[in-house]
């Protein structure tokens, strides 16, 4: 699986420009599903049919945050805007690669004090060109952060764990899973980082009976970090809420019961910012009972996002168990 993860995270596909990653995922999931479709927005929908069964949509977004060129000056410096949540303090000195293969480094205008964190409009990409003609960058060209997969043993690091690790968990689960109580729609969604757009249309198209997103969540286990009771290595997290949704209590109950019965470690997640494809599914059509299985991840949206391999393994175990345990969807008074 580590090879699969390495391939997934080293494929550059920022939001709206998911062609490369879609091909990689399609190639890797083809043997394990009955049918593959691509919808109008570019979501990859992979179906495992089961007549008469509840239809579950499991969504892992395949896009990543990135940058887009807005201006190339006469000396070849490229100004840019973010695609998704790019933090200025992670950019300085960063390396990027445009989808046309051109690489560059991020430079910054001189700041008034060394403490100041400049905004993105004070930064530029230096592609090593002497002028605009040799820069080989056009306005609108898209770049991804450029870092190789880093294997730290038990823990793995990449610039695109969000959410290629969710993609990997979904592929790996379908590879291992022989049977399910559900008709499964494995959705690899586009444009999550710019407002859960892909999952919105995918959920409308699929019209599932229930929805589960696979995504990363933040952790509170780093020095003077955020106040959050999720740690790396303590198991996958079952989302209770984030700022985009209140996970359906029936889905939370189903996930917790299943994890406890199978003795899989899990954490109860409250994320006070951010959102996932789960929101899009919950709000779709006449409403969908929806939840999120999260993989704890340090430094989300930095070029070095870190996950724990055991959390990843346990996420696969839990997802497999969930797909063999039907939930109760009646409301409890």
């Amino acid at each position, binding site marked *: 699986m580590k090879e699969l993860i390495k391939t997934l995270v080293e494929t550059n596909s920022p939001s709206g420009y998911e062609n490369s990653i879609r091909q990689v995922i399609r190639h890797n999931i083809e043997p394990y599903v009955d049918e593959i479709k691509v919808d109008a927005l570019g979501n990859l929908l992979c179906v495992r049919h089961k007549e008469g069964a509840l239809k579950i949509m499991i969504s892992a977004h395949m896009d990543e945050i990135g940058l887009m060129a807005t201006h190339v000056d006469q000396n070849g410096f490229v100004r840019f805007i973010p695609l998704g949540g790019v933090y200025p303090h992670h950019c300085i000195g960063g390396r990027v690669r445009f989808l046309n293969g051109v690489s560059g480094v991020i430079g910054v205008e001189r700041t008034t004090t060394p403490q100041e964190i400049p905004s993105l409009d004070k930064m530029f990409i230096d592609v090593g060109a002497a002028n605009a003609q040799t820069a080989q960058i056009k306005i609108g060209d898209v770049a991804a952060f450029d870092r190789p997969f880093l294997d730290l043993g038990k823990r793995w690091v990449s610039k695109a764990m969000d959410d290629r690790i969710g993609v990997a968990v979904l592929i790996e689960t379908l590879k291992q899973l022989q049977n399910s109580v559900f008709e499964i729609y494995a959705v690899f969604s586009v444009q999550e980082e710019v407002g859960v757009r892909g999952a919105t249309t995918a959920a409308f198209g699929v019209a599932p009976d229930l929805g589960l997103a696979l995504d990363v969540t933040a952790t509170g286990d780093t020095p003077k970090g955020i106040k*959050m*009771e999720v740690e790396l290595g303590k198991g996958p997290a079952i989302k*209770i809420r984030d700022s985009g949704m209140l996970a359906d209590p029936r889905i939370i109950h189903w996930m917790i019961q299943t994890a406890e019965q199978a003795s899989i470690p899990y954490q*109860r997640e409250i994320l006070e910012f951010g959102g996932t494809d789960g*929101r899009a599914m919950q*709000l779709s059509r006449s*409403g*969908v009972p929806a939840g999120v299985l999260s993989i704890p991840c340090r430094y989300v949206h930095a070029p070095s996002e870190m996950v724990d391999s055991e959390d990843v393994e346990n996420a696969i175990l839990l997802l497999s168990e969930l797909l063999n345990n039907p939930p109760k969807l009646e*409301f409890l*008074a």
Partner: protein
Amino acid sequence: MKTSEIKSILKELTSTPALSGHESALHSTLNHLWSPYLDEVSISRVGSFQALRRGTSTQPCPELLVTAHMDSIGLMVSAIQDGFLRFTEIGGIDPRLLPGQMVTVHGKRDIPALIVQPPSFLLPVEFQNGIVTLHSLWGDCGLPPEKVNQQVAIGDLVSFDQPFLEFENDMVCSPSLDNRASLAALTYCIYELVNRQPAWDSWFVASVQEEETQAGALTSTFQILPKLAIVVDVTFANSPGTPSHKTFPLGDCIALGWGPTVHPYLYKTFQELADQLEIPYKIESFSRRSGTDADSLQLVAHGIPTMVVSIPLRYMHSAVEVVSIKDIQRAGRLIAEFIAGLEIDYLEKIKWDETN
């Protein structure tokens, strides 16, 4: 309906916390209040309570949606440390009113607790003066840490524990009056219609999760696909020191919404009807969003002509919200009269070119 009857309905409606995302506890209350007077009751896929009063029209009956959200704000346990609780908010909470509040922690069982703040000299420097944020407040259940760990988990809900207070006039104070006051108005409306014969089908929906994502209104509107919608919610009432151009006098009027969220012809109908019935109202202007379910449901499917009717409320998003029963009656009566008088060909009158 008498003031005392509305008070008792409101008391019943506010006695169940039903925080956003966890509204199913209110289903039985609504079933008890509404279903004897309506023709069909269902629960949506995300938990909104949907009830239909059939119209008399024998032609295909157009459908009207009248909706008020049933969820309320509250807190959620976000961490447990040495037997004390940390909280996150459900919906927007005014943190100035939290220290000293009594709450109920809905753990394995309901546990009484207090929200407390440490003495100021023990707080981070930036919080020693002024308002302490939610992150620096604690919940104290008065239990040893091992008991707390046993009974309470991250994600457990926390609701305000304040009694329903009846002032010596027609005003009441309680948590969750945003938006149970509007549910009381819907109840009033449903009762008023018992002996009337409206032509249209009317769906009365108590929607979920307005305070977070407006999930209930969005999804029930998609399911029902009404031709018109009326959203009932609360708005800011005056209190000492509040500017009159930003608030509405409590007990003196209701507010009729006006702005891009509201369909001008519907607004005109409501305004004329209120004038005719001598129901006092003021205009509530929305520049972009109304801050109600109307913002979502207006945009569902092919688009829904929408009206917003609001009930003034003091101390919004606190544990001590105050409303006037008179305003609830006014809102309920106006909507009932609107429904009763809705002609079968009303939609043909909604023509953009002829509306100003």
